């Protein structure tokens, strides 16, 4: 059978000349996907506002309220005593990315129901490339949100070293990819829009609260050794720590390794899940729309 296909290709020089895609075409495709994600994001103004308001509420209200309750001693990467609001800033950055990752997973479910995902998946470029592009686009959108948040926080006198704003970028890219890939993986298993509430309860809240986002882990350990271990095994903790250290121009190697490893793992999982022959898509049932 394959020889027949090869034969067909060899006798059709016109088709043969156009086989495959050039690097330039891959880049055009990637650029197009990022462009479309950004356009959509800018058009959904409520989404941008709520993406900003959420962490700001934590920063302005929660952190202010807890300022006196929780004292944070000097722990790396900090060199002095810090305010609680300074401590939770990296956690809130990671939260922005967590929400964004899950939200683009929501939009993928929505897209699939609406059929937009199909537009993406019938592109002739390889599917792994399409999914990675979508992931990169989602991460790019999360960067916009994070820097907008950092700008506002700066006026709130939460200032990292100037260089930190640059060194945090690669960390943000990596953590954004990890959380986006997780969202993509989840989007392939959840079936309907309403399940986003479930994602909130079973993914976002546990990940956020069982992490070092709101409290240093040594304090958690004093209270509950079990919770401490849960936090240590939570990849979100490592995303937070990676961002925290990077914001102060340092590298937390363990977190880097964990986040990089999880990114790879989640991405492979998502590509597998969206693979037409092996994935869950086909097994789950009818194509969108019913008939």
């Amino acid at each position, binding site marked *: *059978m*394959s020889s027949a*296909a090869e034969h*067909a*290709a060899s006798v*059709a020089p016109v*088709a043969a000349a*156009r*086989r*495959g*895609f*050039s690097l*330039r*075409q*891959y880049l*055009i*495709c990637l*650029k*197009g*996907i990022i*462009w*479309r994600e950004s*356009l*959509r994001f800018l*058009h*959904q103004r409520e989404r941008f506002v709520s993406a900003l308001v959420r962490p700001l509420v934590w920063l302005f209200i929660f952190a202010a309220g807890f300022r006196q309750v929780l004292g944070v001693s000097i722990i790396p990467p900090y060199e002095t005593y810090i305010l609680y609001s300074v401590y939770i800033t990296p956690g809130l950055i990671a939260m922005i990315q967590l929400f964004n990752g899950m939200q683009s997973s929501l939009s993928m479910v929505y897209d699939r*129901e*609406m*059929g*937009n995902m*199909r*537009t*993406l*998946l*019938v*592109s*002739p*470029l*390889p*599917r792994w490339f*399409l999914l990675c592009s979508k992931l990169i686009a989602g991460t790019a959108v999360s960067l916009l949100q994070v820097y907008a948040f950092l700008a506002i926080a700066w006026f709130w006198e939460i200032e990292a070293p100037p260089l930190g704003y640059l060194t945090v970028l690669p960390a943000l890219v990596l953590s954004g990819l990890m959380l986006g890939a997780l969202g993509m993986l989840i989007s392939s298993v959840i079936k309907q829009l309403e399940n986003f509430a479930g994602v909130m309860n079973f993914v976002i809240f546990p990940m956020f609260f069982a992490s070092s986002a709101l409290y240093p882990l040594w304090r958690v350990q004093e209270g509950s050794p079990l919770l401490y271990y849960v936090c240590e095994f939570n990849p979100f903790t490592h995303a937070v720590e990676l961002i925290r250290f990077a914001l102060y121009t340092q590298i937390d190697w363990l977190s880097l390794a964990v986040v990089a490893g999880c990114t790879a793992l989640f991405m492979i999982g998502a590509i597998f899940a969206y*693979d*037409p*022959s*092996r994935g869950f*898509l*086909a*097994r789950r*049932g*009818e*194509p*969108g*729309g*019913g*008939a």
Partner: protein
Amino acid sequence: MMHGMKAAGPQALSVESVSHSYGARRALDDVSFAVAPANFTVLLGLNGAGKSTLFALITRLYGTQRGRIRIFDHDVAREPGEALRILGVVFQSRTLDLDLSVMQNLMYHAALHGIDKRAARARGDEVLARIVLSDRARDKVRNLSGGQMRRVEIARALLHRPRLLVLDEPTVGLDIKSRADILGHVRQLIADEGIGVLWATHLIDEVADDDQVIVLHQGRVLADGPVAQVIADSKALDVRDAFTRLTGSGSPQAAGEAA
């Protein structure tokens, strides 16, 4: 083993012994047919006949479980890239970005096919002119009528100059005039560009006398051939009658609910 339907040149679309199941439920059962280039083939079937499953397989949303699907001799499973680049698709559900403009939707699609901006813009103008919507290029899709959205989707499907166009219930939910417009546009395409078209519908009145027709019922192909032949073979008076006889279903709901 399975050889192509006819020897002369590759078929635009060839579906060979395709079966597909969702768990225990069999949606397609040994389905085989072909669409020739420059030909309008109607895939006729009631809702639930397996049309959308077939489309999901042709567009490689799902992998083919059994059998083989080829687009101009490119096996969809083996060379998805080569197969998909010459395939234009209009899905049953709307797949445009409502918040983006018509042109932005077209540009996005072009990017997905690796077509650069300048070429994309030129082709965008060209396909919009063809569907007579050039003046709406900057409008948000949200502000178009249902029929106009469908025309944009067809324009989008043609942007990368496919040689095979497949449409899944493209006229669903449209009024009579929009339906006729769209049908006319697509038939004109065949005359102008010689592309092969697979048009899935449950509306019998969309079948013209010189079309090819495939009757799909409960996942099986019951008839396949030129309209006249299908009518003659089932000893029927017209297409509607032939469909009723073949499927054993009351015809009124097949065509009646339409417009």
